[in-house]
């Protein structure tokens, strides 16, 4: 099995069909030296939609997320928000436009309190809106992740599961149009994962943003996503309703394995 795909012959540069699509990615490509981490990927996430992104290890999921969130510059391709293309070359710019994310390895400001962690993002939001910091919204978010009692503790001292929730709340403080979650259920047990399912849905319902979730936990991803994208060797393998994707023999072959 070769882990390296060839570059797409021509990156399909089709513009997104609707004006109010939320996030669209067209023909996105990224290579590191000889490694094509992603290769001509198209992906859409409407406002209020939860989209799952799965694929074997090293398929390029995190890289895609890095590019969309401005953490990494693409080699080529375009990213659209509401039909307007923008160069996702600066993470700050992306955050200001309302693309928020969490990280595969939790990245909190460990020494800052839970509240201050969330505040950091709220400050950005206030700057963009030229409004005062919305303290009430910060309180609401702390309530939402159910950490009222620990709001003053340094984030680094919290248990793993709590840290995950703080990270999500922090991203929400940007009042994002699109929220990107990279393996939010990793390291959680079945019970916690189930709770997370509820949380993710609640986010969509309450805050109305589009959500792209990467996850290897099948139960979780099947339950939570409305549509599912499958990546393989940097390219999009297939896309569709979760149940359909699940039974796609190619997906079983490269990703799910025989038992599933």
């Amino acid at each position, binding site marked *: 099995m070769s882990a390296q795909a060839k570059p797409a012959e021509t990156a399909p540069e089709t513009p997104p069909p609707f004006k109010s699509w939320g996030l669209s990615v067209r023909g996105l490509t990224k290579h*590191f030296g000889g490694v094509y981490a992603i290769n001509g990927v198209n992906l859409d996430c409407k406002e209020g939609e939860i989209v799952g992104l799965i694929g074997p290890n090293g398929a390029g999921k*995190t*890289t895609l*997320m*890095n590019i969309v969130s401005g*953490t*990494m510059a693409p080699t080529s391709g375009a990213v659209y928000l509401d039909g307007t293309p923008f160069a996702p070359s600066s993470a700050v710019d992306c955050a200001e436009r309302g693309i928020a994310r969490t*990280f*595969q*390895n939790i*990245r909190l400001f460990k020494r800052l309190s839970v509240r201050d962690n969330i505040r950091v993002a709220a400050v950005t939001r206030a700057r963009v809106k030229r409004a005062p910091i919305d303290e009430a919204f910060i309180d609401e978010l702390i309530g939402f992740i159910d950490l009222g009692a620990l709001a003053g503790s340094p984030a680094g001292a919290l248990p793993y599961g709590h840290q995950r929730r703080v990270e999500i709340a922090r991203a929400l403080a940007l009042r994002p149009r699109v929220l990107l979650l*990279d393996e939010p259920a990793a390291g959680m047990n079945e019970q916690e994962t189930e709770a997370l399912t509820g949380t993710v849905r609640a986010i969509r319902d309450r805050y109305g943003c589009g959500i792209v979730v990467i996850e290897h936990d099948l139960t979780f991803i099947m339950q939570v996503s409305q549509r599912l994208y499958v990546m393989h060797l940097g390219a999009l393998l297939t896309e569709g309703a979760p149940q359909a994707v699940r039974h796609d023999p190619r997906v079983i072959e490269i990703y799910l394995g025989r038992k599933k």
Partner: protein
Amino acid sequence: MDYVLQQTLNALSVGSEYALLALGLAIVFSIVGLVNFAHGELITVAGYAIYFAAALMAPNPWVLVAIGIAASVGAAWAFERVAFRAIRNAPVNTGILTAFGVSIMVQNAFVIFVATRPKPVQTPEFLASVVQLGPLRLPVLQLVETGVTAVAILALVALLRFTTLGLAMRAAAKDFTAVRLMGIRANRVIQAAFMISGFLAGLAAIFILSRRGAVDPFMGFVPVLKAFVACVLGGLGSLPGAVVGGLVLGIFEVALQVVLPQDVAAYRDAIVFAVVGLTLVRFPAGLLGRTVELGDKDT
């Protein structure tokens, strides 16, 4: 012609001296992430060791050289054991300040127990001699220094690239505990890194002392400063970078000394630092430093 050649050799040997020191800094930095400002004091320790050894028993100068290097290695070991081990994995700030602390302590210990004023030190006569090469008369010291530096660099690169110890050293930089999980005595690995840096400082000390003929408590400061600049110029943490940075800095300094007219020459150091600074703005990772695109993966 003779002049140009002579200045070229000067530049090379100054560059080698910086490279030796920078290499010592770089190896410690790349392995424990510590900018060891006390590196210069290793030179001082070597100097005083030679001074005392000569006063106590006046043996032959080669024995003194060995004693000097041994003292420097020992001091590096002791610094690690007493101070730096306790702050492993600490933030950079902590490391820098601790190293300052060690450096100030050592300097003042010599002030208290020896003297502030410089003490004379003997080094082998041989190093002060001159060889005739065709029409050229070349100082042995400069030839030896350039040669020794080259050998030291090659040996070090080989060690780090091809031995398990070298692998372990590079690994311990980022995750000490994980190295222990490989069944390796990680403490020893780090000690070894410090001792190598002590050895390099000891070598440099011999050359510095041969030129200066004197040791004083504060003599380590200027060299370590230059070495630090050289390291960053080359790309902090990269050993070839340290060497290149040292050579470039030395050559550049000598070149400016030579070409600048007298009234501008007073600004030489300002020019050196301005150029180094601008180079770094242009190449933030240093001349040899490579930047890897990590995205969110920079753990």
